[in-house]
């Protein structure tokens, strides 16, 4: 075999790579010839070196290949021209530009606000650094034949978890959260406080400003939020200051943490105190029978939440042997906010709303894009000449597409700059509406990337159809003047109008239905009288101990009719029991009852309605072991003759002495909870004082009188009162919020629609100017012409109504499934929405139609 010495391969390949293919062959030949000659005369090394030098010196403009098939041409001048023409067109048609830019920016504001809202929803609780590893210990219990999920657990559960599965968990903390009174010197406030085991600040990774997260290990210590520390101490150093909680515990400030942000479940917690304080009155900490604690856990990084969740399932049952067979599990933090429990399954709850709102937002944006398309194509005749000339000069189709896309881009960019300003200004209003604290993350680079994608995306979405449509004109036809927009170009425009109106009508129907549902629930019989009723929470022991004296003083005051106490307010049921036994009860199922202790005056104060039997009375000693059920409870128990029945609970027999009508105490959209009333306050301690004012009393005067008496008994407690009717109205807040947001969207959608319709109608009127003129000469009346110009639109809107009604009907059926107490979907909603949409559309179109019809035919026919 002949060994051929060869030049350095690397450089040979390099040469072949860069050299222009036309020259490569013979230059390589030259190189090889020189190389071989050098090889003969000077040896391999020198030949190699010379070869390398030659190859490197050949890297010259004339010899290296070009990058692509052809050299790129500089396009900037053309783009400048596009922008210039686009800009001139905007200025020339100011009304049209206003509709386009206004509609686009309005819908983009909606899209921006919604995106911020969704971002906030999806990042809920992400403030906590251990987000991925935090879970709440919860229980599934078999109640009423189904599975009910509770978050309240007995205090010793956390210790049991630590003892049995300590290696899986980094921290486990029992907590209890509620309104408490915080006092420092003469400053007294009611604040939400959290009593917890010492590891909670560590689990939540609180940002400490002073002190350490471990401060709660000391039972005499307390952690304050930054804002509470500020209002208590001002600028003084908070560390080691003494604060008083509920006039009972004196705690030393061991640290101050940054306020927990609003999109955390733990928002609003103003202080954290050791949980042992709750047991300082001697209550046992290992009572498995009372469930009132939330348990928050952080698992070890190497453990899986699902696996660990399965491990702990039997702990509770092992200790309580409860008949409901409770199963413990871990609910990961990522599912706290957007998911809810339905029959033991974690299903998407709020997440559905997030999706829904997102879809609506994109629809509104889509509407504005449709407007853009419609107006651009409607005006196509005006631009047709330009397209013809450009094509005649030599533009290829792609260049015209680029031109119209860049015009769309120009419009979208202008609209977006308005959007940014409007969003920044409307954010406070939006925060109030949505009950959030959303801010624009200016410094977030991901946001800017999304914005750029968004602008490009909207430009392409809105601009692509007109771009391809306009650029497809035949130059000969256009320039000869025989060009008329044909049937086929009108059809897609009609489809777009129909789509727009379908969306708007669906939104209107949805909004009406939400309000209808709210109104329906508001009209629900409440079962008690909540007017002139005030409730005061009993947070400190002073009034508890001297209640009789307190009551008497109140009754002596003018304008107060009656005073009573109970364990739960009338607008909530704070405690429940699932271990009632009665004759004829199915032994295999457990039934859940709300349990409320009241005093005999309660019925009179709230004015409930006894349907059978009698109220509690102080004159019967036996009433301390008596029950009054509500109707729902009797229904649940299946008792035919409830009066005189005996019910076993907590090892005692309780006599049923009365039945009251159902009262709406929990959600007005939910069925009434089966509830049992008793007067034994040892079972359920009193928490609330109810004061009934006489109908025509001066509320302000009476309130100050009450406050005076209140302060006489407990001077260091802030006087907080609530009007029951206001509290009740709060129950609709969530639904009213949906209603407000939906109506805002619907209004916006309709406005955008009408803008588009207005523009479209004006162009059509303009197109038919001559026709209108001739018709007028021939004797058409104003009404004829108005009918002629409006008819097309009416047909379109009728079609969209036909599409919108079934869509909204089925989606509303779905939505109403969320409510047990729900309104019927009545026909008037569809009628109102359809009629409303039609009226608004007609008004918009009519303005243009009548203007066209009123035009002097001499003027319209003279031109040309």
């Amino acid at each position, binding site marked *: 075999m002949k060994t*051929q010495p060869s030049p350095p391969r690397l450089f040979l390949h390099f040469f072949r790579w860069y050299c222009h293919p036309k*020259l490569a*062959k*013979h*230059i*390589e*030949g*030259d*190189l*090889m*010839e*020189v190389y*071989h000659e050098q090889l003969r005369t000077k040896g391999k090394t020198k030949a190699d070196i010379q070869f390398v*030098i*030659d190859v490197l*010196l*050949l*890297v*010259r*403009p*004339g*010899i290296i290949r070009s990058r692509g098939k052809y050299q790129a041409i500089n396009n900037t001048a053309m783009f400048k021209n596009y922008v210039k023409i686009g800009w001139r067109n905007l200025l020339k048609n100011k009304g049209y530009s206003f509709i386009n830019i206004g509609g686009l920016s309005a819908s983009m504001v909606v899209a921006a606000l919604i995106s911020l809202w969704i971002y906030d929803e999806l990042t809920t609780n992400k403030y906590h650094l251990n987000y991925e590893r935090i879970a709440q210990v919860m229980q599934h219990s078999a109640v009423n034949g189904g599975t009910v999920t509770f978050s309240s657990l007995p205090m010793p559960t956390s210790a049991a978890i630590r003892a049995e599965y300590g290696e899986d968990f980094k921290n486990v903390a029992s907590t209890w959260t509620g309104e408490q009174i915080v006092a420092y010197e003469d400053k007294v406030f009611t604040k939400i406080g959290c009593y917890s085991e010492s590891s909670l600040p560590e689990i939540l990774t609180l940002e400490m400003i002073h002190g350490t997260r471990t401060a709660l290990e000391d039972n005499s210590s307390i952690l304050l939020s930054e804002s509470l520390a500020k209002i208590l101490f001002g600028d003084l150093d908070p560390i080691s200051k003494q604060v008083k909680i509920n006039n009972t515990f004196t705690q030393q400030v061991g640290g101050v943490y940054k306020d927990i942000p609003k999109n955390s479940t733990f928002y609003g917690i103003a202080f954290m105190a050791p949980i042992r304080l709750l047991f300082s009155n001697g209550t046992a900490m290992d009572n498995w029978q009372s469930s009132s604690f939330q348990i928050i856990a952080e698992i070890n990084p190497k453990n899986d939440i699902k696996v660990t969740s399965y491990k702990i399932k039997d702990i509770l049952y092992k200790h309580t042997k409860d008949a409901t067979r409770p199963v413990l599990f871990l609910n990961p933090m990522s599912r706290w906010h957007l998911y809810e429990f339905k029959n033991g399954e974690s299903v998407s709850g709020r997440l559905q709303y997030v999706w829904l709102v997102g879809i609506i937002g994109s629809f509104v944006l889509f509407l504005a894009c449709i407007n853009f398309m419609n107006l651009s194509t409607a005006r196509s005749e005006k631009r047709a000449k330009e397209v013809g000339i450009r094509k005649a000069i030599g533009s290829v189709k792609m260049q015209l597409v680029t031109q119209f896309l860049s015009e769309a881009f120009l419009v979208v960019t202008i609209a977006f700059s308005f959007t940014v300003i409007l969003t920044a200004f409307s954010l406070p209003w939006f925060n109030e509406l949505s009950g959030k604290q959303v801010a624009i993350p200016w410094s977030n680079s991901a946001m800017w990337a999304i914005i750029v994608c968004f602008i490009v995306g909207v430009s392409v979405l809105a601009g692509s159809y007109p771009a391809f449509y306009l650029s497809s004109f035949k130059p000969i036809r256009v320039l000869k003047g025989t060009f008329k927009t044909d049937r086929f170009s009108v059809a897609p425009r009609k489809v777009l109008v129909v789509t727009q109106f379908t969306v708007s009508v669906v939104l209107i129907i949805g909004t009406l239905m939400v309000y209808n549902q709210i109104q329906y629930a508001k009209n629900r019989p409440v079962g008690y009288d909540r007017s002139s009723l005030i409730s005061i929470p009993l947070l400190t022991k002073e009034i508890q101990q001297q209640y009789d004296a307190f009551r008497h003083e109140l009754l002596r005051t003018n304008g107060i009719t009656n005073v009573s106490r109970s364990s739960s307010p009338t607008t909530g049921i704070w405690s429940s029991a699932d271990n009632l036994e009665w004759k004829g009860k199915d032994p295999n199922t457990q039934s859940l009852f709300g349990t409320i202790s009241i005093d005999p005056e309660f019925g009179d104060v709230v004015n409930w309605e006894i349907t059978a039997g009698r109220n509690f009375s102080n004159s019967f000693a036996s009433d301390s072991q008596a029950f009054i059920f509500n109707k729902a409870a009797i229904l649940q128990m299946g008792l035919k003759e409830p009066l005189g029945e005996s019910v076993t609970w907590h090892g005692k027999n309780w006599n049923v002495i009365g039945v009251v009508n159902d009262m709406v105490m929990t959600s007005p959209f939910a069925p009434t909870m089966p509830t049992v009333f008793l007067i034994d306050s040892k079972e359920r301690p009193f928490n609330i004082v109810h004061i009934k004012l006489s109908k025509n009393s001066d509320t302000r005067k009476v309130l100050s009188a009450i406050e005076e008496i209140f302060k006489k008994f407990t001077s260091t407690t802030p006087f907080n009162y609530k009007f029951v009717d206001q509290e009740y109205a709060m129950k609709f807040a969530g639904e009213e919020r949906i209603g407000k947001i939906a109506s805002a969207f619907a209004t916006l959608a309709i406005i955008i629609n009408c803008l588009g319709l207005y523009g479209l109608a004006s162009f059509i009127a303009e197109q038919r100017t001559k026709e209108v003129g001739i018709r007028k000469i021939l004797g058409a009346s104003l009404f004829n012409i108005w009918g002629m110009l409006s008819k097309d639109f009416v047909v379109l809107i009728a079609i969209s109504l036909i599409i919108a009604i079934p869509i909204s009907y089925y989606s509303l059926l779905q939505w109403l499934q969320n409510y047990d107490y729900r309104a019927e979907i009545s026909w008037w909603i569809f009628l109102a929405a359809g009629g409303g949409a039609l009226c608004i559309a007609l008004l918009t179109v009519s303005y243009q139609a009548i203007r066209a019809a009123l035009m002097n035919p001499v003027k319209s026919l003279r031109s040309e």
Partner: protein
Amino acid sequence: MKKYRLGEFEEVVILTIGVLYKEAYGVSIKKEIEARLSRSVSMGALHTALVRLEDKGYIKSFDGEATEERAGRPKKYFQITALGKKAMEYTKSTRDALWKDIPNVALHLKFS
């Protein structure tokens, strides 16, 4: 008026092609210039000049035989075109005219 543009190196190359007549290809041109003008010519410079001359239409090329020494690559021979000849003549005549018009004194002064 820039009717014919011929750079200094390009002129040398096109003249050498003329000298070599039928034997003018990359390596032979390079060697000829190196021998006659005693200056070293890099392959890069030479080929760039050749490409440029061909682009201007002063020379044309055709493929020749492939030898083992050239690893099977063909030679590319160059020939002066009519336009090339005109360009050469134009260059020469302008140079001559310039030479002719230099007053004798100007040159003689150098030696004084």
